[in-house]
C-alpha cells in the first residue's frame, strides 16, 4: 500500500503583455517558450515533439472519436494544424527536407524531462513523470521557476515584449485554462467503475484543494468569493472534451504507455495551486483513492471499503460542484442517490474511512509518505469542520480569503470592487516581487514542504525514478543529436547514420537512473549510447 504512483501535472499559465491587453497571446506564449530555448545551449532547441504515439481522440469508454467530427481544439497531436521499454532503437526515415517550424508550435523538451510549449494560446509546462506527491510539488514549483526565467529573459531584451505570467485558471471574463493532473491507473479497472467512484471525490475535494476565486459565475457576473477557480466551468459528468462542456471525469485515453497494462487518468477539474500543501494533498489523496479502487476491484471489495464509496453516488454531481464551491461556510449539503444529504467534508471523510478500511484489510505497515498524506488529510478535514481559519497556512482558498478579508475590513470594499479582483489575479503572478502568494510565503504565512534548493535542482534535472530520467538526461547530454522526444520516445539524429533512431519508452518506470544511469555515464555520445542499447 502506498501513495506511490506515476503522476504529473500540466499547467497552462495565464499570459499578458502589461499595458497591452490586445497583444496576441499566441505570439506572447511563443516568446515565452522560444526565449527559454534560446537561453540554453543551441542543440537542444532543435528537438521536436514526437507525435507518433499520440491519440487525443481515443476515448476511455472504448470508442474513437472520428477526426472530422472532433472540435479542432481536441486535435493536439498534429503540430502543423495548431500538441526505454527494453526494446532496441527503431529506425525512422530521415525527412528529405527540413520540416517547417511553426512558431505557434513552439516546443522545448527541458533537461528536467518536462515539456514547455504553446497550448491554446497559453504557455504550458507539463511536468516530468514523478512517482509521489512530494516530487510532484518539487517539479511543479520548478515549472514556476521555468516560467519566471522566461519573464526575466523577455524583460531583459528590449526588442521583445515584456510578459507577465499567472499560475491561475480564469480571467474573470468567461475564459478558463487548465491545470491537469495525470495518474497512471491499472487498465484492469473498468473505466465506468473508475469514473463513478471518482466523481463524488472530485466534486467535494475542492474544500481543501481549491485555489479560491473572486466572482461567481463563468464571467464573474455575480459578486462574491468561492472555493474553486474551475468549478463554474464544469458542465458535464463524463466526457472527452477539455475545452468545452468540461467534464468532472475526462475520458481521453492516451496512456503514453503500454495500453494493455495502463490507462492515464486525465483530471481536468483541478485548480492550479501555489500553496505546496494544496498541491501535495491534491495529488496525494487522489493517488490514495485510486489505490483503493484498484485494490478493491482486484480483490472483491477490500473488507467493505468499496461499498462505502459506492454509497456516495451523488444525485446531481455537476450542480454539486457549483454548490460546494459557492459555500465558504463548508456547511452546504448535497443530495446522494440513496437520499442522504452530506456536506463536502462528510463525503471526504467517507473516502478517508474507505481508504483506512482497505488499509486495515490489507494489514501491511504504511510507508512514511502514505502515512503523511493520510494524517494531513484527516487533520484538515477535522480542522476545516471546526475552525477553517486555522487552515489558512495549508488551504489556498483560505489563505487568499484571509488577505481579501483583511483588505475588505481596512478599506470597506464590496466583493465586486476591482481591487479585490486584482488581488485574486496578482495572487499567482510568478514574479516574487509582484505575486501576492510569494509575498505571503516570504512573510512565513504559509507552510512550505520543499526547499528552494530542491526546486532549483529540479529546474535542470529530472526525477531519477521514472523514464523522465532518460528523456531529460538524453537532452542534457546529447541535446544536439536529439531530433525529437515525447512522453514515450526519444528520437536521435546521429551524424553519419542512414536513418533517425527512435528509442521507445513504453514503460514509465523504466529508463530510470538505476536502469540506465551507468549506461549513460559510459556513453560519451549518442552513437555509443544507441550501440549499447542494441541499435
Amino acid at each position, binding site marked *: 500500500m502506498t501513495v506511490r504512483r506515476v503522476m504529473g501535472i500540466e499547467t497552462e499559465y495565464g499570459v499578458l503583455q502589461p499595458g497591452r491587453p490586445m497583444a496576441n497571446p499566441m505570439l506572447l506564449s511563443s516568446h515565452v517558450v522560444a526565449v527559454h530555448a534560446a537561453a540554453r545551449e543551441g542543440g537542444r532547441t532543435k528537438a521536436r515533439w514526437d507525435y507518433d504515439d499520440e491519440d487525443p481522440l481515443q476515448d476511455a469508454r472504448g470508442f474513437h472519436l472520428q477526426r472530422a467530427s472532433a472540435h479542432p481544439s481536441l486535435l493536439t497531436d498534429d503540430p502543423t494544424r495548431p500538441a526505454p521499454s527494453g526494446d532496441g532503437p527503431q529506425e525512422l526515415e530521415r525527412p528529405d527536407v527540413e520540416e517547417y517550424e511553426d512558431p505557434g508550435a513552439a516546443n522545448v523538451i527541458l533537461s528536467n524531462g518536462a515539456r514547455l510549449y504553446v497550448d491554446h494560446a497559453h504557455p504550458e509546462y507539463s511536468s516530468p513523470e514523478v512517482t509521489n506527491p512530494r516530487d510532484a510539488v518539487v517539479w511543479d514549483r520548478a515549472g514556476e521557476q521555468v516560467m519566471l526565467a522566461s519573464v526575466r529573459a523577455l524583460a531583459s531584451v528590449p526588442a521583445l515584449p515584456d510578459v507577465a505570467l499567472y499560475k491561475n485558471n480564469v480571467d474573470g471574463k468567461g475564459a478558463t*485554462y*487548465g491545470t491537469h493532473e495525470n495518474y497512471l491507473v491499472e487498465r484492469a479497472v473498468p473505466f465506468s467503475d473508475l469514473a463513478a467512484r471518482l466523481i463524488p471525490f472530485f466534486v467535494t475535494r475542492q474544500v481543501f484543494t481549491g485555489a479560491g476565486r473572486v466572482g461567481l459565475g463563468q464571467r464573474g457576473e455575480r459578486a462574491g468569493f468561492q472555493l474553486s477557480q474551475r468549478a463554474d466551468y464544469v458542465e458535464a459528468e463524463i466526457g472527452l472534451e477539455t475545452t468545452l462542456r468540461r467534464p468532472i471525469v475526462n475520458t481521453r485515453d492516451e496512456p503514453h504507455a503500454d495500453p494493455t497494462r495502463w490507462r492515464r487518468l486525465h483530471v481536468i477539474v483541478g485548480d492550479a495551486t501555489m500553496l505546496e500543501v494544496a498541491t501535495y494533498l491534491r495529488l496525494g489523496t487522489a493517488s490514495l483513492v485510486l489505490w483503493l479502487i484498484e485494490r478493491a476491484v482486484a480483490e472483491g471489495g477490500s473488507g467493505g471499503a468499496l461499498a462505502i464509496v459506492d454509497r456516495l453516488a451523488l444525485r446531481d454531481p455537476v450542480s454539486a460542484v457549483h454548490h460546494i464551491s459557492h459555500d465558504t461556510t463548508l456547511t452546504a449539503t448535497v443530495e446522494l442517490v440513496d437520499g442522504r444529504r452530506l456536506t463536502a467534508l462528510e463525503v471526504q471523510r467517507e473516502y478517508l474511512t474507505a481508504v483506512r478500511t482497505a488499509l486495515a484489510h490489507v494489514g501491511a505497515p504504511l510507508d512514511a509518505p502514505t502515512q503523511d498524506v493520510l494524517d494531513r488529510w484527516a487533520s484538515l478535514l477535522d480542522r476545516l469542520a471546526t475552525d477553517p481559519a486555522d487552515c489558512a497556512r495549508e488551504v489556498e482558498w483560505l489563505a487568499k480569503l484571509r*488577505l481579501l478579508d483583511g483588505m475588505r475590513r481596512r478599506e470597506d470594499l464590496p466583493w465586486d470592487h476591482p481591487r479585490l479582483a486584482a488581488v485574486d489575479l496578482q495572487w499567482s503572478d510568478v514574479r516574487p516581487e509582484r505575486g501576492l502568494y510569494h509575498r505571503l510565503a516570504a512573510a512565513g504565512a504559509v507552510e512550505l514542504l520543499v526547499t528552494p534548493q530542491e526546486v532549483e535542482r529540479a529546474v535542470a534535472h529530472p526525477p531519477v525514478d521514472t523514464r523522465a530520467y532518460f528523456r531529460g538526461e538524453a537532452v542534457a547530454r546529447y541535446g544536439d543529436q536529439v531530433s525529437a522526444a515525447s512522453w514515450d520516445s526519444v528520437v536521435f539524429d546521429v551524424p553519419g547514420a542512414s536513418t533517425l533512431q527512435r528509442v521507445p519508452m513504453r514503460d514509465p518506470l523504466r529508463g530510470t537512473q538505476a536502469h540506465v544511469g551507468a549506461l549513460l555515464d559510459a556513453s560519451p555520445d549518442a552513437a555509443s549510447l544507441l550501440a549499447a542499447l542494441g541499435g
Partner: protein
Amino acid sequence: MAGQERVNPRRDDEEPVDAPEPVAPSVQSRDAEVDALLDEIDDVLEQNAEQFVRGFVQKGGQ
C-alpha cells in the same frame, strides 16, 4: 495590552501575566503576517486595479 487581557481572563496570579495561551502567539503572528502585507499592499498591487482587471483577458484553454 487589551488583547492579552482578553486572552487570559481566568489566569491564576502565580503564573506570569505575560505568558500567553499556547495558541495565542501563533494567531497573533499570523495576523501580523497578513497585516504587514496589507500595510504595503499599495506598493505591490497594480496601481490602477480597475484597468489591470479589465485588461486581464485570456483566450480559453483546456
